[in-house]
């Protein structure tokens, strides 16, 4: 029963795309109801799993056998995939309903829904894959759909550039993924997870490094991160679906999948920890002074992803997974409410031009406040059940102190930039043109946000109460460590409130150095995006023209030969060039010789 139901879940959205009646208007509603039913059906295996803790592997269609490698289509339904699938379906349902309102005036809205549906299918393939080939298919699928969706308004050059950036950074990660697949084929002769975990090889540093690179590319860790803020060029439903809850989770999800291998390899754990810590601090710094509301939320996503990496680095993959699930809810909700603000203010994305929405848009402002509180880990909301255990475990485990400090600073910065959004967008006096109509009455706008609010409040509790803990949490710790997360967050709140209140009175003549560092995203895109292509292009130009053409073909042999001969001849010879004299003397000596002989 488990098997059939979950296969039905996957096929329901596929049937919708196969019908292809996207000329009619009801394609949208068919899609939305298909996703709704898929969500309802997917709850059944999840509840069965919660009750019985029985994992299942479905392996049905044998595709091909290459020498000794057997490839088949197999699905793995364990704790991770069974918990993530209903969450992904729920969020996609809410986003599809939201985009019925948001993209209402778009002539290609049918195509938009088709792309969203394709994205959902590939994401589900990725999550439920049992062998690396299927996971790779899902991986590439979400990459392609992200490209198509970011460049939705493809008349705008910034959107095209951002989509290309996303594709390229994902590609760099894909190289790591392929290296991992190749290593597993060579050493373990299989791409199935069961075989990999059973044989448990001892020298797994190289494939796990490849996996880390792949996750860094997909989940925008430091070094491969600029595509995520640039990906905000896409429509808000795209940002909500891809870049807050699902696609950027693919990288972290794959890392979590490999946790039996990562338990044994301390090097990889330390590098994950450090990479995650650097990411979370760097993106939190960048998020502090951005002025575009979507960019702040995107950098906040990146920061939370870094936090998840840190959790994996301290060998707590289950905590990372729970944080992933809860983060999906409130981040999607933050994006949806920012979309509502943007549309209502007539496509205004700059928070310096918003204000006073506290009274005019009550549902949206409630959503933002609840979402921000959940994000910062307010006790007993959703984020508390996932974020607080992470900080507690990090404080009590034997890890790098520097990474720990950086993570704590980043947590306080989370509170700061959330306060900044609330302050600029909601409080104060309106700073937008007075003739814009602010209207929240459409049920397609309000219902998804309401559902996600309920999810943000209750899901943390539900998930953590219904899962069996795989590692024993620390129950006793000194009070100052227990309150560390809370104290750090409160510090962030108060400092941010003070600073934001000061902006009413104080104004800098010229932004300070730190401010421009933060606003320009740490100068990372400006340096790497220009220097690296410039270097490789000049290197290739030098190779082709100078080295090949002018040196090897021209100068090496012909010209060198002439100069060598000329210098040698002029050095050695001491002739005077009197040809007739030499010839006459030659003739004379021959005649004399002949005469004497005869």
């Amino acid at each position, binding site marked *: 029963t488990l098997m059939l139901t979950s296969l039905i879940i996957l096929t329901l959205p596929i049937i919708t795309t196969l019908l292809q009646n996207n000329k009619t208007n009801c394609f949208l509603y068919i899609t939305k109801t298909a996703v709704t039913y898929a969500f309802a059906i997917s709850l059944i295996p999840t509840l069965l799993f919660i009750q019985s803790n029985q994992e299942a592997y479905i392996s049905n269609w044998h595709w091909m056998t290459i020498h000794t490698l057997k490839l088949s289509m197999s699905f793995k339904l364990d704790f991770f995939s069974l918990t993530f699938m209903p969450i992904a379906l729920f969020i996609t349902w809410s986003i599809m309903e939201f985009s019925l309102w948001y993209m209402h005036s778009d002539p290609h809205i049918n195509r938009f829904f088709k792309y969203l549906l394709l994205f959902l299918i590939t994401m589900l393939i990725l999550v439920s894959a049992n062998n690396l080939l299927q996971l790779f298919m899902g991986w590439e699928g979400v990459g392609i759909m992200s490209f198509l969706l970011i460049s939705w308004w493809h008349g705008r050059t910034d959107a095209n550039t951002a989509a290309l950036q996303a594709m390229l950074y994902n590609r760099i990660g894909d190289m790591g993924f392929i290296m991992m697949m190749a290593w597993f084929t060579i050493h373990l002769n299989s791409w199935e997870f069961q075989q990999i975990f059973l044989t448990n090889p001892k020298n797994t540093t190289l494939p796990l490094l490849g996996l880390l690179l792949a996750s860094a590319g997909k989940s925008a860790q430091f070094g491969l991160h600029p595509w995520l803020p640039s990906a905000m060029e896409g429509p808000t439903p795209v940002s909500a679906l891809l870049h807050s809850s699902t696609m950027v989770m693919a990288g972290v999800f794959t890392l979590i999948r490999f946790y039996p291998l990562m338990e044994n390899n301390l090097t990889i754990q330390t590098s994950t920890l450090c990479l995650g810590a650097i990411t979370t601090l760097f993106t939190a710094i960048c998020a502090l002074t951005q002025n575009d509301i979507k960019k702040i939320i995107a950098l906040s996503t990146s920061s939370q992803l870094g936090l998840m990496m840190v959790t994996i680095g301290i060998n707590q993959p289950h905590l990372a997974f729970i944080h992933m699930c809860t983060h999906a809810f409130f981040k999607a909700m933050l994006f949806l409410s920012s979309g509502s603000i943007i549309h209502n203010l007539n496509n205004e994305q700059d928070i310096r031009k918003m204000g006073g929405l506290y009274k005019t848009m009550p549902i949206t402002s409630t959503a933002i406040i609840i979402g921000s509180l959940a994000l910062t880990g307010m006790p007993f909301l959703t984020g508390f059940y996932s974020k607080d255990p992470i900080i507690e475990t990090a404080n009590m485990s034997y890890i790098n102190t520097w990474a720990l400090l950086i993570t704590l600073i980043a947590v306080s910065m989370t509170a700061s930039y959330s306060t900044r959004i609330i302050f600029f967008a909601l409080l104060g006096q309106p700073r937008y043109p007075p003739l814009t109509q602010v209207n929240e009455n459409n049920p397609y706008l309000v219902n998804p946000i309401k559902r996600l609010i309920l999810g943000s409040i209750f899901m943390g509790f539900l998930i953590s109460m219904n899962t069996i803990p795989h590692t024993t949490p620390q129950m006793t710790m000194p009070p100052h460590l227990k309150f560390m997360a809370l104290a750090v967050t409160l510090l962030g709140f108060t400092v941010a409130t003070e600073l934001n209140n000061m902006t009413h009175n104080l104004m800098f003549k010229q932004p300070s150095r730190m401010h421009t560092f933060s606003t320009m995203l740490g100068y990372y895109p400006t340096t790497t995006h220009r220097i690296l292509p410039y270097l490789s292009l000049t290197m290739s130009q030098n190779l082709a023209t100078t080295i090949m053409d002018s040196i090897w073909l021209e100068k090496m042999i012909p010209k060198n030969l002439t100069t060598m001969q*000329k210098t040698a001849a*002029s050095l050695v010879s001491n002739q*005077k*060039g*009197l*040809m*007739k004299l030499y*010839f*006459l003397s*030659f*003739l004379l000596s*021959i005649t004399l010789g002949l005469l004497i002989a005869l």
Partner: protein
Amino acid sequence: MPYIYINIILAFVISLIGTLIYRSHLISSLLCLEGMILSLFTLNALLSLNINFALSTIVPLILLVFAACEAAVGLALLIIISNTYGLDYVQNLNLLQC
């Protein structure tokens, strides 16, 4: 010694004297050089036919090959001289030593 050999050897000697004694143009020396080679070729061919030694018929052919190379080198030298001096007068050759 048959008369025909003396004839051709005489042709060779006249060409030799022409190579060594010339007035102003370098190209006349090269022409006489070609004449030398021609007479040598004829001598070799007649010799190998009269002696009835079949294997030595290859000698004139090899001589032709080397003659061609030599003519090419001579002409290249002529062209370089002509490039630097404009004419191939022999008096020019001790001017502008490089």
